């Protein structure tokens, strides 16, 4: 039997899932802090803007956006299948395209900083 090419889509999905598991709690804490008015100096707009100015940071940010969006798209694709939507090719194309479009938009905005 032929080796499946599923690893192409699964690799970034697994990486994104792992990353999200670490990032989501951190983001929640930071958002709560900001909502309560305690924005740490480190997270001030100017600081973050300057941080996103370096090429290495841009690459890391774009990579993070790509992996998290891809992971969500893949999870949704499987959920659709499990819920009985069997047009897998269509669903996969739509969702992965959305993830790629989001990544492209992030890359575009990052490149303008």
């Amino acid at each position, binding site marked *: 039997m032929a080796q499946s*090419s*599923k690893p192409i889509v699964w690799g970034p999905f697994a990486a994104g899932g792992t990353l999200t598991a670490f990032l989501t709690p951190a983001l929640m804490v930071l958002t709560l802090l900001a909502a309560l008015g305690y924005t740490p100096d480190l997270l001030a707009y100017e600081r973050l803007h300057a941080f996103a100015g370096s090429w290495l940071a841009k690459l890391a940010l774009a990579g993070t956006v790509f992996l998290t969006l891809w992971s969500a798209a893949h999870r949704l694709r499987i959920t659709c299948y499990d819920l009985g939507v069997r047009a897998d090719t269509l669903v996969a194309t739509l969702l992965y395209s959305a993830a790629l479009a989001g990544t492209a938009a992030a890359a575009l905005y990052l490149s303008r900083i």
Partner: protein
Amino acid sequence: MSERRVELEVLRYHPETDAAPRFQRYSVDCREEWVVLDALNHVKETLDPTLSYRWSCHMAVCGSCGMMINGEPRLACKSFLRDYQGVIRVEPLAHFPIERDLVTVIDDFMAKLKRVKPYLIPAQARALEQGEYRQTPAELKRYKQFTLCMNCMLCYAACPEYGLIPKFIGPAAISLAHRYNQDSRDGGRAARQEEIAAAEGVWECSFTGACSEVCPEHVDPAAALQQVKIKSTVDWYLAHLMPWLKK
């Protein structure tokens, strides 16, 4: 020792004569410390000798008494009556065709098991005079948990993907393939990958984790499958991005 009247609702079906499965109620006096299998045996001995089901060891070793108890895949010999209130509904394992009453047709699983070569394929031939294979405790630990599987098929009854896609090789067979792949004495991984790295192999798993929840031996098949996915992904990237590494 206290007794209790237990109401069982058991699925009955004889494919040769019945148009459709039906439920039959049995009311039996049971000891408080009995398991569901004892209650079924009591029914068979005192009320209805035609009731069919599989069992052998009565001690959670043989793996033959798997059935749905109140909708959950369980070993009948490990399910205590005291943990259930009201009518206890007993059905054959989900996702398998019915042979008769609670007995299922397991040919599909047996064929899949055979396909994944769940036996040691020695990495190097070894003559008798060379003595035994040696393994460190760390090497043993890499696969020991996956040896505990007793082929009870509860994980197949719990797996929604197996229900949706009957071709899926499924949790226990893939975990057993992984058990041998992880063994330092074994060299059969490439042969097993033929089956388990295919689309109907590990890639139908969507990691719902139901298999690990119902496994009575704590094999944790879901963990085995995720490890297989990671290894197959590394294989794939190596083969496609660095083809010169190929032997």
